[in-house]
């Protein structure tokens, strides 16, 4: 440990730390653009300058904190007159050629440059010369648009592709004030499954999501903690949706209750500060057309009627089997097990297979099993073998199918089928009883990831009125059927 002083506070810093790291660890704020805790230190923005106080022999000096090693007894000032003057100068230069088109920039409201301008500068430009022009709407990839005028060349995006995703998909062309961030010409950035992290990394509105472009102002949205179901890593994410106070009656109700965007939620135990692009596209998963009507024999009925019919089937079955969802939450699995675990021959199925061309696995985040909770399910039951017929007991007469991904043709012919699922597809009509259930974003719960880490997701939206939570349904289904006159 090394004793240093920051703004008059005594700080115990660790050997090998930079002043930036020691300051942040001890709650002292130093502004920065190019620095990032997970990336290398380029020291190019020059906004993190601090003052090292001199002694009687020499005057103090200013230098960047991100590359300054701590030294025993050093006295650092992060907010002296000299630091403030220098910082203001540097900000003036950062914004010299910045278009300041916040009015049409998606980053407004969460922009580091905006925040620092108001906090540390607050004055208009002193230049009377025209700003340097550059490309304003460059398709960096299908998913990301780049505005080179807003870019402050901090190089975070380039370093991310070099050091984290290792796609080497981005670089900086040319030099001086005509430097331009560009994607490599062979499409490697387009194919980088982590590309969208550069959108979060960008401290200004230079790198923006094309799907999200001009869709919503961020101050109308709020994030809800959730978990990406795209694979068994279960990255922590924030699902952004309209704040309740900002719902608009004039808007299509769907717009008030939709996933506007998904961003990483920092979780050192699971995903650090990153997610892959699949997690960004959760709207494509959760906003598929929903099954909202219970069905008996392919005809829509009231939910209670379908539940009662299901109870009859369950009571009558001699050799029931179940295909358990690998997307079920820990709570849903517990309820299922309490209801059917001993009586049914249960196997865990693969709700989602990898898409053609989807990366199977890598050293960063992506895992091969594209389902969020197989680990918790297989703690209870075995996985469905490759030859599924072998999994069903002899004389199987009822199969409870929970979730997606079931090959209905592989079920024992003659067995009744009770199907619980959230999304519309033709299988609704094949089941003897179909019960629509809620999705992850409509309830709270927990998943257990591949490494055994248990994480919680929160509800973002209300579930549709005609749809039930699977957890409650299992308990209901386990109750005996009413004896009824046919």
């Amino acid at each position: 440990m090394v004793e240093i002083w920051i703004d008059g506070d005594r700080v115990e810093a660790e050997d090998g730390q930079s002043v930036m790291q020691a300051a942040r660890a001890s709650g002292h704020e130093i502004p920065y653009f190019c620095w990032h805790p997970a990336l290398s230190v380029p020291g190019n923005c020059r906004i993190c300058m601090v003052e090292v106080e001199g002694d009687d022999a020499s005057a103090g000096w200013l230098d960047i904190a991100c590359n300054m090693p701590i030294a025993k007894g050093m006295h650092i000032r992060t907010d002296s007159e000299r630091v403030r003057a220098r910082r203001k100068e540097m900000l003036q230069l950062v914004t010299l050629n910045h278009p300041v088109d916040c009015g049409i920039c998606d980053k407004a409201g969460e922009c580091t440059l905006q925040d620092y301008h108001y906090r540390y500068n607050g004055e208009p430009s002193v230049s009377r010369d025209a700003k340097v022009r550059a490309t304003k709407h460059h398709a960096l990839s299908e998913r990301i648009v780049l505005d080179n005028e807003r870019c402050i060349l901090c190089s975070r995006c380039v370093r991310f592709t070099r050091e984290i995703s290792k796609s080497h998909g981005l670089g900086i062309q040319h030099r001086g004030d005509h430097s331009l961030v560009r994607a490599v010409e062979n499409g490697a950035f387009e194919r980088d499954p982590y590309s969208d992290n550069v959108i979060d990394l960008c401290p200004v509105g230079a790198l923006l999501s094309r799907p999200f472009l001009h869709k919503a102002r961020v101050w109308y949205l709020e994030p809800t903690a959730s978990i990406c179901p795209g694979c068994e890593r279960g990255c922590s994410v924030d699902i952004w949706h309209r704040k309740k106070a900002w719902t608009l009656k004039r808007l299509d109700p769907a717009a008030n209750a939709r996933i506007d965007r998904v961003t990483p939620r920092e979780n050192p135990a699971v995903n650090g500060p990153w997610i892959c692009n699949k997690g960004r596209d959760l709207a494509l998963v959760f906003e598929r057309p929903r099954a909202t009507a219970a069905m008996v024999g392919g005809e829509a009925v009231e939910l209670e009627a379908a539940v009662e019919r299901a109870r009859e089937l369950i009571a009558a079955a001699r050799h029931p089997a179940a295909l358990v969802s690998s997307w079920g939450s820990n709570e849903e699995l517990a309820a299922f097990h309490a209801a059917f675990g001993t009586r049914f021959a249960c196997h865990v199925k693969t709700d989602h297979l990898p898409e053609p061309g989807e990366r199977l696995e890598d050293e960063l985040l992506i895992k091969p099993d594209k389902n969020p909770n197989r680990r918790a399910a297989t703690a209870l039951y075995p996985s469905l073998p490759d030859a599924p017929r072998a999994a069903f007991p002899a004389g199987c007469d009822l199969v409870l199918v929970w979730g997606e991904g079931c090959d209905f043709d592989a079920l024992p012919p003659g067995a009744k089928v009770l199907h619980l699922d959230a999304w519309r597809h033709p299988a609704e009509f094949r089941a003897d009883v179909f019960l629509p259930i809620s999705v992850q974003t409509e309830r709270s719960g927990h998943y257990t990831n591949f490494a055994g880490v248990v994480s919680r997701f929160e509800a973002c939206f209300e579930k549709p009125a005609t749809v039930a939570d699977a957890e409650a349904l299992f308990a209901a289904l386990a109750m005996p059927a009413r004896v009824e006159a046919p």
Partner: protein
Amino acid sequence: MTGTKLLMNFEVTPTSHCLADYRARGGYATLDKVLREMRPEEVTKEVATAGILGHGGAAFPAGRKWGVIRLNDEQPHYLCANADEGEPGTFKDRWILEHAPHLLIESMAIAAYALQVRHAFIYIRGEFDLAWRRIAEAVEGAYAAGWLGEGIAGSAFALDIVVYRGAGSYVCGEASGLLTSLEGRKGYPRNRPPRLTVRGLYQMPTVINNVETLTNITGIVRDGAAAFRQVGTAKSPGTQLISISGHVQRPGVYEVEYGYPFAKFIREDCGGVLGSLGLKCVLPGGISTTVLTAAEIEPLVLDHASVGAAGSSLGSGGMVVVAEGTCMVRFLQVLVRFYHHESCGQCTPCREGMGWLHRIVDRIVTGDGQPDDIDRLVAISKANDGTTICGMGDAAGYATVGIIAKYRDEFEYWIRNGRSKYGGRLEALGHEWVREAALHG
């Protein structure tokens, strides 16, 4: 006669750069002696005692730089000769490469021995023509004669020298930019710490010395530090190669003993100012040094202390002579256009600042300058002083601040009147190039 000659002490002939001629002058005998009789640390001690200062512009004591290298630390060490020579006004390393390439090679071998270097590099700017051919030939000749490669002069010492060509970038003359370029990338300078002598080429301890600095090593080791210190002044021992150009009768490369009178050098040894109007000012050591007026150079001698006390620097030895009647606004315009073109673009103050300086001076020249533009130029320069990754930002600042400090009236004149006080002239009156521009025919 500009004092004792340590480097330009032989007659330049069509073959004087060749190995045979060099051997006849005693070439490679010192390397031989070093390998037989001296330990590496003894060589470094001699260089440190000699007190030779770097000739690339920063005037850092070479022996002190060498002393940071830890012998027997089980890491590879690298040596680079900085032959990028991009500072406008400077062309003296070129003289060495063209006329004394073997002296550089022998000196590098001695330095490599002292620093336990197995691989050394000569980073030469990509544009150099004859200079590159001569040094490349000399390196091959040295290999063929056994002065490079394995088992040099029958000793256990081995050295490879690679001549590495740049491709057009001023910042590759900055030591850390040079290394980044040598690693096969854009020549982006690096922040310090770490020092390059700790983590340099591919993160290994590296010494980078200017070509002229290195070329002196053979003489220092051959004749001893004491003999070297007999030449020059106490704080600036030895000599400096000065490349002089601009409005001067006899431009070229001259070896000057430190302490030689400044004005006498220009007036007598270089034939004096071109044209009849007399001397206006001088850039003593390249465009990145503060301009000195004719009056200011009168009492000075050519050494670091004297020029330093006058508020300027000998820099890279690229002296530019300016005659009266030259427009200093257009003069600055050429400089800021250059800095803008060469900024690597990494750090905020230089990337934005160089373009800003250039645009303001361009606007003054087109007649749209405003009075507060002058203070703005100074403010931008100050914002680049001590805030940048490398010295280029600072250099542009010194150049700008110096010219404005001493010739503010010309800027004010142009802003007030919409034209130059001196007709926008950059050439010496009576020595214009002319042809097409004036004739329109």
